[in-house]
C-alpha cells in the first residue's frame, strides 16, 4: 500500500513513464492541487531510494482577479462600447456604469466612441464604429489557456502594467525512478505507540529509520550561573580544608575597616576618589570602636608595636568616610578583631568569597564590581613556609600543581608573596593570587597575642575557570 492515493498514482504513472514526469503536469492531469503531488513526492522520498526528485523552478504568467474578469466579460472599454446604443447615451448615465470611468477614456482613445457636447440635455455619447475587436480580452484568454508565449513581449508588459497579468515562479519536481523503485511500497511507522504494544502489531510493521546525526532536544531545565558554580566549588575546597566562612554581607564599609585597620595610610593611592566609591549618603560611619581606633591612630602617626609608623597626621574624619568595600579583607579585619577580643586566643581558619567594588569605567577587562576569594589562618608560630604549604594544597585542589612565589609589596602584609602558576596553554608563568603574613601593625592594635601570626591569600573569582561537571 502506498502513502495515500496520489502517491499510489504517482508510482504507477512513473512505472509507465519514459524517464520521468513533472509534478505540476501530473497535478493538472489528476485535477488535484499541486501541493498534494509535492506532499506525495516528499513522503516517497523519505522512504529511501524509491524515487528521485529534482527541484525545478519555472516561470508562468497568470491572470490577476481583474484579468480573470476581463477574460470572461470583456475589457472595460468594450463593455462601455457595447452599452452605447445607436441613438447614443447621456455621458452622465454612462459614467454611472461599473466600467464607465475606466472604459470611457480608453474607448475614446481607441476612437470607438465620441461625445457630442451640444446635445440639449447635456453631453451625449455616440458610437463611431459599428463594431470593434476586443484585443485585451482575446489576449487574456490566450494566457488563461496557457499560451502566454503567443503574445509579444510588449503586449504582455502592457497587460502587466494594467495589473491584469502577473508572473509567478512555480517550483515543481521532475520525478524519476530511484535505485530501489517499486510500486508496492508500504508506509513506515514513525514511532512505537501504546496501541502497537498492546495489540502486538509492532511485530509486522516497518519503522522509519532515525536520523542519528540530528541534535537531541535540550532538557527543559533551569541553570545555575557559571561564575557562581565556580564560587560553589571554591567554597567546597575551603570547607574540605576546614575553613570557616566569614560573614561578608555588608557591602558598605567605613574607611576605617577598609583601610585604617589594615595599616593602609590615609594618603595611599587606593584611597583616592578615582579608585574607590565613596558614599554621599550615609557619608560617614556612625560608630567606630574608639579604643581600638586610638591604637590604630597612634600606630599610623607615631608607630608602636615595634614599628616606626608612617609619621603623618592621622585624621578621624578620613577614617569615618563610608565607601563600598574595595576588598573583603575589610571583613577579615572585622573577623580578626572579634577573634582578638575572645580570650583565650583560639586558632582559626577563615574564608570568604564575595563582592568587592572599584571605581572603574567598564570595559572588556575592567569591572566595577567583582568577587574576591580570601583565605586566612591565624595560629601561634605560623611561617612563610606554612603559607606556601597551605597554598600548595589549595591550588592542588584546583588542579594547579606547578607553583612558584615572587616577592611583592602589599600595604598590609609583610612578607608578601605573589603566587604564580605555569600556564600550559600560554607556556609561561602567570599570576594566580596574592598572599602574605598580615603586618604586626595591623594585628597587635586589635589585641591579638604577639606570637600569633596570620597568613592570608586572595584571588579573584572572575579569573577562575568553570569547574568540570562533577561526577557522582
Amino acid at each position, binding site marked *: 500500500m502506498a502513502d495515500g492515493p496520489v502517491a499510489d498514482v504517482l508510482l504507477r504513472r512513473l512505472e509507465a513513464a519514459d524517464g520521468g514526469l513533472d509534478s505540476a503536469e501530473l497535478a493538472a492531469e489528476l485535477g488535484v492541487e499541486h501541493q498534494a503531488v509535492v506532499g506525495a513526492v516528499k513522503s516517497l522520498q523519505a522512504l529511501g531510494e524509491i524515487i528521485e526528485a529534482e527541484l525545478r523552478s519555472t516561470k508562468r504568467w497568470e491572470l490577476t482577479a481583474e484579468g480573470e474578469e476581463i477574460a470572461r466579460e470583456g475589457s472595460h472599454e468594450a463593455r462601455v462600447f457595447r452599452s452605447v446604443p445607436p441613438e447614443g447615451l447621456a455621458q452622465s448615465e454612462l459614467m454611472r456604469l461599473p466600467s464607465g470611468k475606466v472604459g470611457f477614456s480608453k474607448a475614446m482613445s481607441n476612437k470607438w466612441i465620441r461625445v457630442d457636447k451640444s446635445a440639449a440635455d447635456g453631453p451625449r455619447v455616440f458610437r463611431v464604429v459599428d463594431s470593434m475587436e476586443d484585443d485585451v480580452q482575446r489576449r487574456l484568454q490566450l494566457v488563461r489557456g496557457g499560451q502566454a508565449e503567443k503574445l509579444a513581449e510588449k503586449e504582455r508588459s502592457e497587460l502587466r502594467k494594467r495589473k491584469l497579468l502577473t508572473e509567478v515562479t512555480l517550483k515543481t519536481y521532475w520525478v524519476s525512478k530511484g535505485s530501489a523503485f517499486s510500486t508496492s511500497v508500504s508506509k513506515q511507522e514513525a514511532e512505537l505507540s501504546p496501541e502497537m504494544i498492546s495489540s502486538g502489531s509492532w511485530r509486522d510493521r516497518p519503522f522509519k529509520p532515525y536520523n542519528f546525526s540530528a541534535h537531541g532536544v535540550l532538557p*527543559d531545565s*533551569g541553570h545555575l*550561573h557559571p561564575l*557562581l558554580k565556580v564560587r560553589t566549588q571554591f*567554597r567546597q575546597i*575551603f*570547607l574540605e580544608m*576546614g*575553613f*570557616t*566562612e566569614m*560573614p*561578608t*554581607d*555588608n*557591602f*558598605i564599609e*567605613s574607611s576605617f575597616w577598609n583601610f585604617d585597620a589594615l595599616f593602609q595610610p590615609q*594618603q595611599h*593611592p587606593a584611597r583616592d576618589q578615582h579608585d574607590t*566609591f*565613596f*558614599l554621599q*549618603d*550615609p557619608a560617614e*560611619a*556612625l560608630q567606630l570602636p574608639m579604643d581600638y581606633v586610638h591604637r590604630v591612630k597612634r600606630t599610623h602617626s607615631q608607630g608602636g608595636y*615595634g614599628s616606626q*609608623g608612617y*609619621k*603623618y597626621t592621622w585624621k578621624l574624619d578620613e577614617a569615618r568616610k*563610608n565607601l*563600598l568595600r574595595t576588598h573583603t579583607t575589610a571583613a577579615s579585619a572585622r573577623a580578626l578583631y572579634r577573634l582578638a577580643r575572645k580570650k583565650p586566643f583560639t*586558632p*582559626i581558619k577563615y574564608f570568604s568569597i564575595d*563582592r568587592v*567594588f572599584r*571605581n572603574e*569605567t567598564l570595559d572588556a577587562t575592567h569591572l*566595577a*564590581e567583582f568577587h574576591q576569594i580570601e583565605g586566612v*589562618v591565624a595560629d601561634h608560630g*605560623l*611561617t*612563610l*613556609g*606554612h603559607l606556601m*604549604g*597551605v597554598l600548595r594544597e589549595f591550588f592542588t585542589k584546583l588542579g594547579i600543581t606547578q607553583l*612558584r*612565589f*615572587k*616577592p611583592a*609589596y602589599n600595604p598590609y602584609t*609583610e*612578607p608578601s*608573596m605573589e603566587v604564580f602558576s605555569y600556564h600550559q596553554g600560554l607556556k609561561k608563568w602567570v599570576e594566580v593570587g596574592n598572599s602574605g603574613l598580615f603586618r*604586626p601593625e595591623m594585628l597587635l592594635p586589635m589585641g591579638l597575642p604577639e606570637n600569633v*601570626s596570620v*597568613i592570608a591569600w586572595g584571588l579573584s573569582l572572575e579569573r577562575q575557570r568553570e569547574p568540570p561537571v562533577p561526577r557522582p
Partner: protein
Amino acid sequence: MPTVSVKRDLLFKALGRTYTDEEFDELCFEFGLELDEITSEKEIISKEQGDKKAEGASDVVLYKIDVPANRYDLLCLEGLVRGLQVFKERIKAPLYKRVMPNGEIQKLIITEETAKIRPYAVAAVLRNIKFTKDRYDSFIELQEKLHQNICRKRALVAIGAHDLDSLSGPFTFTAKRPSDIKFKPLSKTKEYTACELMNIYKTDNHLKHYLHIIENKPLYPVIYDSNGVILSMPPIINGNHSKITLNTRNVFIECTGTDFTKAKIVLDIIVTMFSEYCENQFTVEAAEVVFPNGKSYTFPELAYRKEMVRADLINKKVGIRETPENLAKLLTRMCLKSEVIGDGNQIEIEIPPTRADIIHACDIVEDAAIAYGYNNIQMTLPKTYTIANQFPLNKLTELLRHDMAAAGFTEALTFALCSQEDIADKLGVDISATKAVHISNPKTAEFQVARTTLLPGLLKTIAANRKMPLPLKLFEISDIVVKDSSRDVGARNYRHLCAVYYNKNPGFEIIHGLLDRIMQLLDVPPGEKKGGYVIKASEGPAFFPGRCAEVFARGQSIGKLGVLHPDVITKFELTMPCSSLEINIEPFL
C-alpha cells in the same frame, strides 16, 4: 606598581655583564621585580600613534621593569643596578655621607605665609656632579617617578632641581598673590604672571593635572634667591633661569610639600641615587632650612638607623633554620648591613636612608626571606586544627539556588550598583522612598546607588536576552543594601530572592507556584497559623492594579509577588507580560 624603563645595554654595562631576556627575567623574579615588557621607543610610538610617527625614532632596546610601590630606591637605573649588584654580592652597599661645605652653607628660609598652603621644605646640594645625556635623562625621570608615586602627583611633595651657579643664596620660600608672581618658566621665552601661567597650563597635557593643588588658594608658593630670581613656583613649574643642563656642575635641590616625612624621604632618595656622579662619590653637601618659628634644620637627613632582631625570630617567621651569621649575610645582600652581636643570636641591622620602607622587624624578615629565596623555603602544613562552618545565610542561599534551578529557573548574576532610575523612576517609586545608599563619585550613571531590589537587574537581563525563546524564567539570590541607622556604618545588606517569569501570558500562577515550592523547601506550611505563610491582596506602584499580593511568613511581611505594571515593562524596554516575586530570605535562617 611603578614601571621603570631602562635602556637594556646601559643596564648591562652598569651590571658589568649581559643576560639573555630569560636570565634577566629570572633575576627580577627572584628579587621581587617583574620584567614587564621588552620594547623600544620606536615600538612604543608605533603602537600608540602608528608606524609613520615612529619613523626615525630610536630602536634601542628598553626594559620596562615593575618595581614594588614602596621601593623608591629602585625607581631609576642607578638604584636598580646598585640593588642588584649588592644582591649578587658584586659590590658593597655604599655609605652615603652628608658633608658641610668648605664655604658658607646654602640656606633656605621659610616664611610664615607658606603655612596655609605648603608648610614644609627641605634642601640639599650635589656638588661637582658630572652629567651625561643618559644620567641627565635618568635624573629627570626619577623626579617624575617620585612625583607620580610617593609625592602623590605632587600634592604631598614637589621637587625642584636648579643650577646653583646661576643663583645666589640665601633662598626664600614664601607665598604670594598670583598676580604678584612674575617669571620666565621652564621652556618659555618670556615672563608671565602666575595667573597667566595657570591659564596657559590648562591646556598642557602634563602640567594641567597639578593645577588644582594651588589653583583656588589666595597665595601661591614661590621660591626666590637673594636677587629676587624665582627658582620655582611649586608644585607647578621651575623658573627657566636656574634650569639644569648637561653642563651643570652644582645642583641645588629643594623639596616642598605638605608631608614633612615624605619630603625628607624624597630628598634622601634623589641625593643618594645621584651623588654617585659627584666628584666625591656618595657625598652630599648639606643645606640649612630655617622654619618660620626660627628653628633651623640641616638636610638631607641621610639617617642610618640601627635595628636589633633576634635570629630565631627571622627563622621562625620564615620557616627556615639558618645560622645568625648566614642571616646577617642574607640581609647585607639586601642593602641592610648586618652583623651578629651580643649572645650570638642577636643581629644588628643598619637601615640606610634609601630604605624608608623598613619600618618594622617584619620588613627585615621579608628581606631575609627574599635573599634566602622564596622558592627555597620548605613548604609545610600548619597543624592548626579547626572545624569548618558555613556562614548560615550563605548555606541557605546555596541550598535554595540549586532548588530554584531544579524548578526550571535560570540563575542570573547582576550588578549590585545601578542608576537611581533603575530602582526608582522605572518602578514608579520616588528615590527618597527607597532608603537607597548613594555613591558620591560614580564615573557613570550606572553606579549612582546600591540596589534596593533585585528586580531591575533581572528585568535588564531579560531586556538583554529578548531574542531567547519564551518563556524566560530567571532568578537571583543576592544582597540588596538599604540605609539603617542601627548599624555602625549606617547601612546594611538584606539577602533577597527574586524571580521573574516573562511570556505572552503574565503567568502569575507560575510565580505563585514557585513561592509555594520555596515555602515547601523551607518547611513553611501554608496558612495563617504561627510559622505558616499566606499571600494577601496588596498593591504597589510596580504592579498591575489588582494583580499584586504581599507575602507573609512566620508572622512578618517578607516581600511581594504579582504581575508587573505595563509602565514598568515598557520602561525596561520589554514588550511581554511579566510576573515577579521578591522576598527577603533572612527570616528563614
